[in-house]
């Protein structure tokens, strides 16, 4: 999905030198990523789209300050995260605690749900719309700090270092949060997965 970095660096240099229209081309591979990053924070389609537009405009205006010591995608993600947090603070009002204050909880159950009568989701089950819908809801309902890491890692497929850098946390925290997010999702989705279990039953449909 992403352009080869050398092409990208060349593209950036040309834009900064005055070929401004090329910014359309530069941003195209990252449109989806920008939107999803915003959505992971604001959880509202309209706000996410407005925020994505602001992010792209801001990246365009400040492109000359991009130094190339980070990847362009990470730099862009950082702008998107800041934009999302700004919008969230505005929506929540200054009186409430900001999202950055949210701490990792050492309590809570982050163990997965055991499945006893199910080995693998059949491919056709992955095609089911309701499973996708259930996953969307489950992701939206993850606590903020877990959702943001999950979206950057598993939805946008950024690596641990990039995720850590974009969120301003250490790589260890990325791993812990990602693990918890995945386990919470697994637990939430088990009821949906179970309905697709292949038959392995005793008499009268009872599980063996």
């Amino acid at each position: 999905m992403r352009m080869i970095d050398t092409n990208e660096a060349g593209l950036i240099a040309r834009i900064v030198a005055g070929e401004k229209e090329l910014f359309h081309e530069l941003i195209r591979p990252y449109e989806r990523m920008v939107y999803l990053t915003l959505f992971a924070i604001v959880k509202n389609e309209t706000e996410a789209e407005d925020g994505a537009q602001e992010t792209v405009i801001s990246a365009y205006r400040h492109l000359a300050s991009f130094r190339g010591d980070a990847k362009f995608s990470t730099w862009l993600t950082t702008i998107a995260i800041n934009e999302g947090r700004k919008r969230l603070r505005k929506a929540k009002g200054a009186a409430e605690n900001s999202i950055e204050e949210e701490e990792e909880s050492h309590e809570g159950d982050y163990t997965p749900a055991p499945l006893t009568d199910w080995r693998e989701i059949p491919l056709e089950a992955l095609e089911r719309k309701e499973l996708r819908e259930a996953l969307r809801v489950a992701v939206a309902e993850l606590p903020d700090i877990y959702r943001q890491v999950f979206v950057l890692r598993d939805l946008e497929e950024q690596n641990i270092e990039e995720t850590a850098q974009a969120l301003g946390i250490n790589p260890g925290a990325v791993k812990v949060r990602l693990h918890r997010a995945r386990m919470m999702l697994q637990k939430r989705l088990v009821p949906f997965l179970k309905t697709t279990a292949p038959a392995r039953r005793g008499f009268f449909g009872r599980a063996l």
Partner: protein
Amino acid sequence: MKLDCKHVWEHISEYIDMTVDAELRKEIDLHLEHCEICSAILDSTRNILILTADDRTFELPVGYSKRLHERLKDEIEKTKQEPPVSGQK
């Protein structure tokens, strides 16, 4: 050392990401060979990740890209009369 299920669960995420060290990976593999519960948990978690990465799961709003590029086009037009994009003064 024989791994118990709980120990395996703690490392499932790293196992999927291939970031567990070789020795632990071997122990987990051994455990998975005979533990249906852990195998099912691993499979279900993996499938959730496959589903997550599927573009149809998290779709963009219809017309998102078009609106984004129109907005960008307006912005570029506005700045065209200005000197090249520059952060330097």
